[in-house]
């Protein structure tokens, strides 16, 4: 198979397979959670669940001061790479073209040098999170194979995307094919791992806020 044929496969059947597994996996996992339901709360409410849940979805984004002081590196590195990933994935021109094709509409992109800078910062932040994970006592205790796998699968698209854009290392179609394949690998593994938190954290935060809000506490 030539490189350009690999690229065509990655842009064609590869993406299809990845889409099927990703979408089906995410839907099944979310339904698996939601359909378990929870018992109705019979206690006299002090606050409303819906609004409290929605509030926590937003406010849980902001760590309290003591937690920040104690876990600053984890929080900062985590935020930097998440923001970086968001910017690179959703605000770069080629990615917007990709998404526009799937969902039907696009939006303005950020200038290329800005995206480039964000990509570099994201790569550095991801490396920082790995070092942190392996050196922080608690994280080292908690870390298992899945944590390292998901880190790798998250890191690869960023680094291969950077190399593909700058045309470093392999021929252009090969670089692009590798980047696409790395994304497809990420998508295929995604629903089976903690990466699901990208979706389920909205549920978890909502439940947290709802449970506390019922009792009149803003969590």
């Amino acid at each position, binding site marked *: 198979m030539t490189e350009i044929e690999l690229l065509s496969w990655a842009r064609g059947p590869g993406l299809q397979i990845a889409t099927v597994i990703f979408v089906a996996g995410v839907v*099944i*996992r979310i339904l*698996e*959670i*939601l*359909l*378990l*339901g*929870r*018992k109705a*709360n*019979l*206690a*006299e409410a*002090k*606050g409303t669940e819906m609004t409290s849940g929605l509030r*926590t*979805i937003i406010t*849980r*984004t902001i*760590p*309290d001061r*003591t*937690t920040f002081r*104690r*876990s600053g590196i*984890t*929080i900062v590195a*985590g935020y930097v790479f998440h923001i970086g990933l968001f910017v690179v994935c959703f605000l770069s021109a080629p990615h917007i073209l990709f998404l526009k094709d799937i969902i039907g509409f696009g939006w303005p992109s950020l200038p290329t040098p800005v995206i480039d800078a964000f990509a570099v910062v994201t790569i550095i932040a991801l490396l920082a999170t790995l070092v942190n*994970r392996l050196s*922080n*006592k*608690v*994280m*080292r*205790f*908690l*870390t*298992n194979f899945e944590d390292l796998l998901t880190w790798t699968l998250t890191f690869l698209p960023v680094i291969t995307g950077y190399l593909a854009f700058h045309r470093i290392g392999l021929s252009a179609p090969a670089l692009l094919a590798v980047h696409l394949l790395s994304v497809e690998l990420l998508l295929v593994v995604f629903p*089976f791992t*903690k990466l*699901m*938190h990208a979706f*389920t*954290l909205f*549920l*978890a*935060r*909502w*439940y*947290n*806020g709802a*449970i*506390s809000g*019922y*009792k*009149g*506490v*803003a*969590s």
Partner: protein
Amino acid sequence: MSATIENGINALKRQVDATVASFFSSCVHCGLCAEACLFYTETGDPRRTPINKTEPLRRIWKSEYTLMGRIGKALGLTKKVDDKFLEEWQELVYDSCTMCGRCSMVCPVGNDIALMIRKTREGMAAAGQAPEGLIGATTRAVTIGSPMGVKWPALRAQIRHVEEDTGLKVPVDVPGVDYMLLLSSMEIMNFPEFIEAVARLFDKAGVSWTISSEAFEATNSGIQIGVSDLAAVLVQRIVDVAEKLGVKTVISPECGHAYTAIRWDGPNLVGKAFSFRVRHILEVLDELRTQGRLKIAGKDARKLTYHDPCQISRRGGVINEPRNLIGMFSDNFVEMPDTGKMNWCCGAGGGVSANERADEIRLKVFERKKAQLDEIRPEAIVSACSNCRIHLEDGLEEYNMDIPLLSLTETLAEHLADN
């Protein structure tokens, strides 16, 4: 039927719901929960990371309620939940956790880890893995009516003292009143001044209230050991008597988890909404304050601070009321660093103080509270939970700190206008 691993596993299965599933699905192993838990921060033992304590529940969720987990189970690839494993976890789930809920406040993906630990205890207890001290307390609570073995005659004796000291009548078994007061055994035995304080405050405020001789115990060991069936038995006693007497509101006293047990868990345990309200004594007093029925005079000049009992503040929702009340007798109030819903646990709640095996670690983690106190150097600490109070006194003594512990209700009563 007695405790078996099968019962334990079944109990865990029953505990999994959408909330649990969403929490376990979202955990990214960030470790922030450890830094919020005093049992980790003061011992440095990573096994005490809150989410790690929930491992028994997680394994059951994974292997029973997820597609991949089921497939893994069929292929024999799941991690076992057996007696050996649960025994290893006993110390983490019971000795190293008060279910204070601070972890639930900091988890970035929103996991209510304390709730999951509470659920994990259901499985532990059903498998016979609850600590001896808690089993004893629960047995006494169910069979005698109080985890400390306090029976009505003991309470009646304390009531007599109060009546003698105050000249007031403490209403007992009076039907149709507004409020029925519950009491924790700890208060009855160690802090009977609380009963006096309530009597005086209610008398001055013109509150119609009573205590029941049939069901006066607020403490709910079922919540602490984590057996909902037994917790329901204890709650039902209160419900029966409240309905029999036809009271409007049941008052939970200065006891932490008692409030959670009756106010928030109660109706769900017995499976029916209450026909009466449930309020914490601080909520009642604050209501009286807003109605102008509390005549308070004189200030306590000392630099005061307030220790938020976890089950009342963070897990209970009674956060502003104590501060409003303190404001009535103090102009020299300073908040603890990390206050209100983010205050640090004293280290003794959730059954830890009933578990003798946990004595050492309980005193060790007091260092977190000590650090808070060292930062603001108060002259007295106000609180509203007798369990916190006893343990804080223990800890202060252990570290040679001479700071008096004040009950908020008692202090309020001391400042009644016409004293």
